[in-house]
């Protein structure tokens, strides 16, 4: 059963947990990068007409960036909980590894999708800045509403990871 041995060796508890940590950085980071890029492209179009609007468009561009940060700190916390950064790395059982993997899942999925959707709202907000710059705050508020769900998901992920008993 060589294949099964290989699988067993690859999917140790530690590795499953690390896989979770990796995904928690990859997916939200992917989403944020894409999202921030989308808003940046739209902003460049506005700046051509009126370079004075740079500050406002920069604020809107910064909004989808938060999901990537949330993902990164979730991964960081998982790594800390596994003791990889200190002197005593913990040996996790498969169940424990799966726990940390599952704990990373909320921010992984919600981070990606909410970043993309938030970016779309932010791009619409760039339109507001272009046509009616006085009402730019309303565009920011619209985008901030989408962030709610990323906040909820990172909260759950972090709580699950923090209260993990090695």
């Amino acid at each position, binding site marked *: 059963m060589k294949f099964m041995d290989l699988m067993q060796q690859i999917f140790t508890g530690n590795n499953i947990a690390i896989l979770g940590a990796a995904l928690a950085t990859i997916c939200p980071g992917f989403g944020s990068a894409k999202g921030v890029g989308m808003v940046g492209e739209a902003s460049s179009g506005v700046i051509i007409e009126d370079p004075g609007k740079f500050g406002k468009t920069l604020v809107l561009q910064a909004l989808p960036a*938060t999901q990537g940060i949330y993902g990164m700190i979730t991964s*960081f916390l998982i790594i*800390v909980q596994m003791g990889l950064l200190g002197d005593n790395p913990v040996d996790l059982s498969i169940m424990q590894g799966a726990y940390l993997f599952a704990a990373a899942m909320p921010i992984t999925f919600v981070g990606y999708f909410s970043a993309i959707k938030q970016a779309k709202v932010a791009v619409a907000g760039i339109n507001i800045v272009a046509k009616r710059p006085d009402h730019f705050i*309303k565009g920011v508020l619209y985008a901030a509403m989408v962030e709610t769900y990323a906040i909820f998901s990172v*909260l759950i992920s*972090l709580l699950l990871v*923090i209260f993990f008993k090695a």
Partner: protein
Amino acid sequence: MSINKMKRVQLVCFSADARKLADELVWLSSLEVSDPIQEDLPELRDDFFSAVDTRDEWNQWESRMQSFAKALDIIAPYRTGNSFLKAAEYDRKTFTALEESFDNTTKTVEKILDTDANRKELVESLAALETQQAALEPWIQSNLKLSLTKTDTSGVVYFTLPILGEKSLQEDNGEDDLWEIEVVSTDKNLMYCIAIFHKTALEAFRERYRQKGIHEIVPEGSDPPAVEWKAIKTRIEAIRNELKNVEDRIRLFADVGRSIETMYDRIQAEQTKVNLLGQMMAGDAVRILSGWLPAEKADRFEACVATYTVAYNLRDPEEGEDVPIQLKNNQVMAPFETVVGLYSYPTYSGIDPTFMMSIFYFIIFGMMLADFGYGLLLFLGCFGFVKWKKPVGGTRQMMLMFGICGVATMIAGVLFGSYFGDLPSAISQNFLGKSPLSLSIALDPLNEPMNFLIISLVVGAIHMLAALGIKGYMLIRDGHWFDAVCDVLSWYVLFAGMTFAWLTPVSWGNYVLYGGVAMLVLTQGREKKNIFSKLFFGAASLYNLISWGSDLMSYSRILALGLAGGVVSSVINLMATMGGPSVIGIILFVFVFLAGHGLNLAMNLLGSFVHAARLQYIEFFGKFYEDGGHPFEPTTLKPKYTRLINQ
């Protein structure tokens, strides 16, 4: 606290006085103008009165303002230290007197624009010459005069070939060919060559090299390339010098920037006056103006127009008129009008929710951000900004609001023991090697999330009951006592019953509960026709408990946001203190602290602002608010660069 009483103003004056009166009214800053004939006397329109056409004058001022703005842009790169200067202050007399310097400033602006046009021309010539120069560079080695393209029996062709042709060039140039090719220079992609040929051989030459990508060039000039190149170089240097002179002349204009800005504002004031004139209706000898005025400003208005021969009428608004809304609150609560304004203004017959809303907004915002450090930064930052930069209007209100909410955040931070998250604890653990600290006075949200949830829900319940109370107050104020008892009191009794029967059971609790149910069942269907419908709809109204329940659950976001901020802070602190009390550790600490907490503050600030506002709009306003008013916008001066006092 309240909606300011408004008076409708109708004013008739002589046309000759119109302009001076417009000036008075603009400085009064309390009149919102609306179309007089349309709203008050539609039957007189077109018969006796017509609109005043001020478009030409307005456009004149607009084009002047644009040229002033353009001049400011031109000298902007040369003005240093500009943003640190305080805005110049003027009162009405000195500001009006500015029109004396109008001609001077206009002349200066024109000079600036001319100099800039000159500069643009020079830059263009420079670019053209540099292109010419670059085109000549490959040919410098050749001695032939550029003007020499043919003689009686021969001709000259300048051309380029792709480099691949080099070897085959040697092979092609046989003895038979009636041409001679000389390679003048080569660069990365092309060879620059001259061919001298017998005039009969031109076609054959072209035929031979067409396949190889020959590209003929006709260079400009008459002297040999090297000489031409030098001549162009001299001209370029001359232009560069002149460009420098022109730039220096522009630099000298930097000092007049202030006066241009001031004059810009002065012109804008004239434009505002013209706008007001344009909103009057004109007859043969009179003008009519109509608008809204806060009742408390009526005295000032009367004093204002007293020196002119006018006829005017101040009356109270009638039912159904679209009265502009001006809210009036004390100094601490007025900034929260921003939150009301973002949603919608109340109707004139409605109620100003700012008082109650601001208390709850204060509490909920504080609970969501809940950190002493962040609150302190918010408080100092916002009030500092207002004191130093002296913003006006909406920005000032918003800054004050955030500053006040900073106080709430500080209080919540102390209660929950959050000082930049768990920073004291992280420092004590990782830097000082001691045990973790717990500084909370009331509760630690991370350790007792359920209690925090209960507190959030209790706050929510009080919030919604207050909204119901406001509804009751509005009904009683308008004389609908019976409705108040049925719609508001019955729910209060029901909720009281639920509390005393289930939450904190007392012996008589059940009776209150039954009483509440009975009240609702009997009264909620009172609009219906027959007894069965009445009772049915009464009973069905109990279903509203579901919507009350979901509204209550909405307040759990206070827990979510409060906790999220705290947890992210802990992780940032963990990352920051990882280096231990070493030199590298301290550097890491400073860097991660600034970046991490700065980011966390920004994100949580936005989130708390949005969600605290959302709770007001949906759960609070939804119970009693009548929206649909538009904000009061008086005709006033809005200077961009100067500050006007006595406004």
